[in-house]
Every structure is written in C-alpha cells, then in structure tokens.
C-alpha cells in the first residue's frame, strides 16, 4: 500500500457510496423503516406466542443480526452495481484501482450503516421487549459485530464476483444470497432443528458459530466446542476464496469484454 494514494482511492469509493446513500430516500428506509418493522413484527409475534424471556432474546438476536448483515453487505454489493447501472464501469477499471480499494472503500460505509442498524434495533429491542443487550459485555458485542461484518463482507464479495460475471442480472443476488445464508445458519431457531443434510450445510457457514457464541451469553448451551475458532477460521477461508473469485472474474471480464458490454 502506498499512502496516501491508496487512502485516496479507498476514500473515493467510501465517499461515493456515502453520497449515493445520502441522496437515496430508500437508504433511510433500509436503515430505519425495515429494521423497525422487523423488530416490531418479530417482537410482537413472540408476545402473541407467550414465549419466555430467553426464547424472545434468542429470536430478537436473529432479527437484529439479519438486518445488520443485510445492510452491511449492501454497500459492498452495490459498489460495482452502481457503476453497472451508471454504465461507467470501464472508467473505474481504466483507473489504477485494485479490488482492495473498492472492497475496503465501499465496505467501510457498509460497516457504518450496519453499525447504525445494530444500534437502532438493539435499542428498540431493549426498550420494547426488555432484551438485555449488555449481558455479553463490550468484548462479546465487539466480537459478535466483527463476525457479522465479516460475514457481510463474504456475501458482498460474492455478489461482486457475480456482477463481474453476469452484470445487472446479478442484482437479485445482492438480496437473495444473504437470505439463503441467513436461512441456513439458524437465525430464528437452533441449527439442531434443521433437517439432516441441511444441518451439515449450516456447519460450514461461519455466522452459525458467531450466533452460537453470542447466544451462549444468554444461557443457551454451545453445540460446538470452540465457536470463535471455527467461525473466524471459516471466515478467513471464505474471504480468501471470495477475493480469489473476484480476481478471477475480473480477469475473465477483461478477456471476455464484459467490462465494455456493461458500460454500453
């Protein structure tokens, strides 16, 4: 890295992402409205079902995690989709930028937005449904958030690879990918209730272990002995794989002329 040129390149994608969010009314909806709706609907459902406090916490952790990851991964996924929609992709790749600049730059905005969603939803959960978010302590919260943001980065990087391969058609993947992952990792239920076969798939998703780790502070037993070790190890493997995949699809796009087609 050559500071400060690398810093400026990363900052370019952060500023662009922040400006687009600021001028997009739906960004406010994404950060406040939908997370608010999610907490209200899930929380009220738990009341209707007369669930005990521990189970309510279990489910609310799922709701908070889902929305935080969804929002955090969007900025990363959209980093190239903005350029595809604007048909300016070739100008970005004509410049001396590396994938790291794009991933880190857009990822930073995702991190900030994800953090805000986590705070908003956490406060609503505490205020309306008596969830005690402070029980895991600062360290537990930071580790859990790091796990969520790294998982969001995996989803975002996968979508980037799909955009470079399939262009605008990959837009739907920006949402679908995260829902699929969240479905499998035991968001609203323990992974033990998943059917055989699917349970094994859940074990290769890092978020499964971070949720497990966070929930154990609320008295839920650990199904896996070292959740953080598994979670972070899998995260490193997936991030390395996603980075290589994005690299490969970029090289392939340069060979196939995809960058030009997406700029027409």
């Amino acid at each position, binding site marked *: 890295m050559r500071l400060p040129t690398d810093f*400026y390149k990363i900052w370019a994608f952060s500023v*662009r992402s922040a400006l687009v969010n600021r001028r997009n009314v739906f960004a406010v909806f994404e950060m406040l409205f939908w997370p608010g709706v999610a907490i209200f609907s899930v929380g009220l459902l738990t009341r209707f079902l007369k669930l005990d406090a521990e189970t309510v916490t279990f489910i609310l952790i799922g709701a908070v995690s889902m929305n935080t990851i969804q929002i955090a991964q969007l900025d990363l996924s959209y980093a190239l989709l903005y350029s595809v929609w604007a048909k300016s992709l070739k100008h970005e790749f*004509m410049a001396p930028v590396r994938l790291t600049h794009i991933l880190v730059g857009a990822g930073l905005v995702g991190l900030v937005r994800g953090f805000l969603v986590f705070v908003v939803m956490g406060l609503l959960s505490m205020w309306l449904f008596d969830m005690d978010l402070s029980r895991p302590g600062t360290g537990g919260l930071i580790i859990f958030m790091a796990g969520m943001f790294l998982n969001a980065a995996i989803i975002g990087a996968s979508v980037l690879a799909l955009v470079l391969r399939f262009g605008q058609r990959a837009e739907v993947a920006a949402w679908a990918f995260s829902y699929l992952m969240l479905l499998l990792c035991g968001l609203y239920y323990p992974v033990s209730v998943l059917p055989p076969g699917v349970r094994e798939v859940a074990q290769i998703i890092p978020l499964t272990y971070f949720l497990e780790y966070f929930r154990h502070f609320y008295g839920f037993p650990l199904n896996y002995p070292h959740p953080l070790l598994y979670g972070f190890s899998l995260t490193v493997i997936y991030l390395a794989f996603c980075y290589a995949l994005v690299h490969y699809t970029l090289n392939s796009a340069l060979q196939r002329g995809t960058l030009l087609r997406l700029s027409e």
Partner: protein
Amino acid sequence: MHTAIIAQGISKSFRTGVFGPRKQVLHEVNLEVASGSIFGILGPNGAGKTTFISILATLLRPDTGQARVLGLDVVKDAARLRERVNLAASGAHFLWCLTVEENLRFYGRIYGLGGRALAAKVGELLDLFDLQPHRRVTFERLSTGLKQRLALAKALINTPELLFLDEPTTGLDPEMAQHSREEILRLNRETGLTILLTTHNLREAEMLCGEVAFLKEGRILARGAIPELQERLGLGDRLSLFFQDGPGTLDYGGLPGVLAFHIQDNRVDLRVDRVEQRLAAILEAISQTRSRVIQVQLKEVDLAEIYHEITH
C-alpha cells in the same frame, strides 16, 4: 521519433451467445503511433475500432499479439500504464446522482489525487471546459453537450501522457463538436499530449489527425498521413477545366501527370498527380490547340474520397 504505441499482430474474437461460434473482430492488427501526435482510426460501425482502442486502454485483453503503450505492455504492465493514460468515449456515462464536481473528485481520487492537488485539478478542469456554472448540477440533469464536456474533463484528471478518445464528438451539436475539436487540438499542441482517436467523422479526422488508419472488418486496410495516402492510392487532385467552345479533340489522358479524365459538354474533369507541379504544363498543352480555357477549378482529394477508395 519516439513511439507512443506499438501494436503487433493483435487479434481478438468474441463468442456469440453461450455456446455460439466465435466472431473474429480483429485480425492481426499492427500499428505504430508517434509520441505527441493525433492519430485517427477510421472505419464504419463494427469495424473493430472500439475493440482495438479498448485493448490499448487495458480494458480488454487480446487473444494473440502484443501491444506496448508508452513503453509498457498493455497486459503485463496494465496497472502502471493506467496511471499514465485516460479515456473519453461517446455517450458519456457517469453516476447519475453525483454532481459534476463530485464526479470529477471521485475520478481524481481513484487516480490517487487528494487534498489541495485534487481541489486545484478539479478547479482547473471546471474552468477549462466551462463547467464552473454547472459544477453543482447532478449528472442526470446535464445536457448531452455538458455530459460530453465532463467526459473530456474526466479524461484529463490524471494529466495523462496519452489520451484515448472513442468517438469523442458523437452526440454533440455542431458548435459544441467544433469547440471540443479545437480543445483537443489545443491540448495536443500546448502539452504534447499523444491522442489516439476513433471516429467515423472524416471531417473530424481531417481537422485533427496527422495520420490515420482505415480499419474495416478488423483489418487495417491502409495507414499514413493524408497526403501520403492520397499519393499512394494514386488518387491525385481534381482539376476541372471549363472551355469557351468545347474541349476539342486533345488527348487529355496523355497530358503530363493526368491519371484519369472525364469530358462533359464544355467541361473536362482531370485527376492529376501533383497538380501544383503539372498545372502550367497542362495549360500550355491546351493553349497550343484552338480550345480556350475560361475557368480552372482545383480541388484536393479529401479524406472521404480516400475512405471510399479504400473501403469499396
């Protein structure tokens, strides 16, 4: 003479559809462009102009062949080369919700500019392209002309040594197109910027380019300076002679330097090799007959005729 671009045996094909056959777009294209020149690649739509320029601009990799731009290999040294070149294309496209200034700042940053250097460069380009009054207007609200001006401004954000212009004036009104051409010429003259442009506007090529290459169906059919091409193709200049009482029976084809002739009523059209050197001798030969020339019209062969001659 320093060479800014050397392309040797560049070929490129694309697959049509998922399982379809490959379509050859470029066939072993060779080209050299001198530093500090404006070089034009001319050809009809689908000739392979954009594909070729995209390979040189590192946006596309050739199937075979090698190209060096500013001494750097377009594939192996792409990252270093991108710092020294830039591109403006027709149909300018930038992020719709960013203003003119924000778009320029974004591109400035991704070329590694920041702080005062970025502010100064953006200010300079806003002035140069008369974009100051529009700097807070979002891209989606700009007129086509302003969008194209922004595209040219963006192409200079990193003070490139070589500029690729892909149909730079397409979509502009005549006045703005002319202004852009003058700006391109001024940049080339004042800064020595090497420019490779593609166009199918022959007048534009005539005005801007010292040398041109004609590309058709992925092959370079001819290249060189315009007078050089004219001579090589044997097109000569057009000389029209108007007679008072008809052209008489003189063998016009046998006159010095005459390549072809056509008689119509009181007028004879001649194609003459180096007309400025031959005119006196031609008029002298005619004066020895009884025919009397009352008007002489001289017209140099233009690029359109060269283009027609080569591509048909």
